[in-house]
């Protein structure tokens, strides 16, 4: 009887040893896999912390910028909080973004983007033009300040009277009045040019008989459905600082037509609204095709 129980004991002991041996074989594989995964977890944790720190910094920066904006609006003095190195840097960054935005805004509102040149002996200004919200060409102008104030190089087209505007507006003593007048002329020119472009795009059925570089004269040919005749329309823009014509004249075989109520209204329309818009209205009313 003792032999059997010893045998059972030995067998179970042997099978235990076998299990242990088997598990020892698979353990190293498992261990290295676990190590790999643990390392990955650590790396991800570090990445997450870094991103959280950056996002928090960004939020602090935005808060600082908001408080800077508020201080500027209320014209208060900048408070001095605890000046850790990080908060100083953050404050600088907030101020940097604020200044960049303000300078960009100056540019957008048609500012002259004045730059000093030749060690302060001259300046360069940019004159932006826009019409109906669309920014168009920008012109540049160099002005010498020393020894005398005079106009240097520029890319303004010759039919804009830069020198005479400088004289009339007394550029020597009032640079801004001169630049404002020049800007007005350039913008009016850009506006007239843009109107012509829009007219050509939107009203292909209307023939442009005559136009000039300064866009100060425009002759159009209208087809009038009711009268089966053509109307020649002349728009004179004698005021070069304006986008609207100073005179509108109709010529037609039917001499009565220009004096009719309807065409008198069309005349006012063309005098008071930009030409491409006026033509759209006239087409809607069926006066022209």
């Amino acid at each position, binding site marked *: 009887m003792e032999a059997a129980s010893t045998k059972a004991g030995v067998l179970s002991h042997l099978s235990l040893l076998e299990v242990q041996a088997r598990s020892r074989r698979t353990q190293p594989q*498992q261990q290295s896999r676990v190590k790999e995964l643990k390392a*990955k977890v650590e790396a991800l944790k570090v990445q997450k912390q870094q991103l959280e720190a950056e996002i928090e910094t960004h939020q602090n920066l935005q808060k600082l910028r908001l408080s800077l904006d508020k201080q500027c609006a209320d014209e208060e003095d900048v408070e001095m909080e605890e000046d850790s190195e990080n908060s100083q840097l953050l404050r600088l960054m907030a101020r*940097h973004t604020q200044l960049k935005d303000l300078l960009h805004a*100056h540019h957008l509102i048609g500012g002259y983007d004045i730059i000093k040149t030749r060690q302060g002996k001259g300046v360069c200004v940019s004159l932006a033009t826009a019409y109906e919200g669309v920014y168009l060409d920008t012109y540049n102008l160099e002005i010498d300040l020393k020894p005398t104030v005079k106009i240097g190089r520029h890319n303004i087209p010759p039919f804009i009277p830069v020198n005479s505007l400088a004289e009339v507006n007394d550029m020597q003593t009032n640079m*801004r009045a001169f630049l404002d007048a020049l*800007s007005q002329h350039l913008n009016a020119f850009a506006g007239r040019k843009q109107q012509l472009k829009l007219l050509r795009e939107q009203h292909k059925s209307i023939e442009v008989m005559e136009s000039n570089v300064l866009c100060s004269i425009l002759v159009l040919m209208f087809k009038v459905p009711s009268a089966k005749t053509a109307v020649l329309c002349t728009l004179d823009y004698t005021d070069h600082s304006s*986008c609207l014509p100073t005179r509108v004249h109709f010529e037609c075989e039917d001499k009565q037509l220009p004096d009719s109520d309807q065409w008198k209204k069309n005349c006012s329309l063309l005098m008071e609204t930009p030409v491409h818009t006026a033509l759209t209205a006239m087409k809607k009313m069926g006066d022209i095709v």
Partner: protein
Amino acid sequence: MEEVQMLEAQIERLQAEVEALQRQQQDNQKDITFQFRGQIASLCGRGPVGEKERVMSSLKEEVEEMEEDLRRQTQMNGISLNGCNAKTLRSSESKVVQQLCLSGRCSELDFQVEFKLSEVKVSSFHSLVIFLFSLLIWDFSAFQADELVEESCDLLLFFRTLRTFSDRCDDRSKTFQHFQQKYPSVVSLPGGCRSEVMRLSVVFSCVLFVRWSIDVSREGGVSPNIELLTKIPDQDTSKMCKKRHSLVFHLKRGKNAIV
């Protein structure tokens, strides 16, 4: 085995969190109008030694240059901006749509405007368009500014006109003040020096009003208009006429000397 499964689950969770944070960071970077990614990273300790000091000193220099630049622009443009808030509404590789709110002052006139801006950049084609312009705050009632700009979205025209209008208002204010100081017994400014009216009490209890209005046309043309309005008691009419002419002449001459 259990440990492996646990770790794998943890990794999945962390990866999802990191992706969410990366998306948030991308959104943040859209709002930042400057390339401060490197600086923000260095602030958080990621970056070579000494990076922070370098970043600090180069930033300081740039900020000083920009402040000097802003002073120059403010002086040249005649407009002082004290706030600019830009919010990016939509942004793709070629097109950015932003909403901007600007506030500032032109001499004595405060304003606040808001507009949407669309910028498209495709190879060499670049377009910048302003739409939806609205005037939020302005205290220059004589200037029908909202008609002027809200239809045409002409930001440039608005600011040019504002400057000219402001210059004419300043001229008027200086002239009124000059006359009040020179002839304090005759001249009074019932609405203050920034108003349209100067009141003159001349002899024989008659009062004259100088109304100096500044009109702004739809096209942005600014035209000052000086009128002399009279309030005359009946019996003094004949004597008044003579005196009135000489007074008007004197006034006009005086104005030309100032303006």
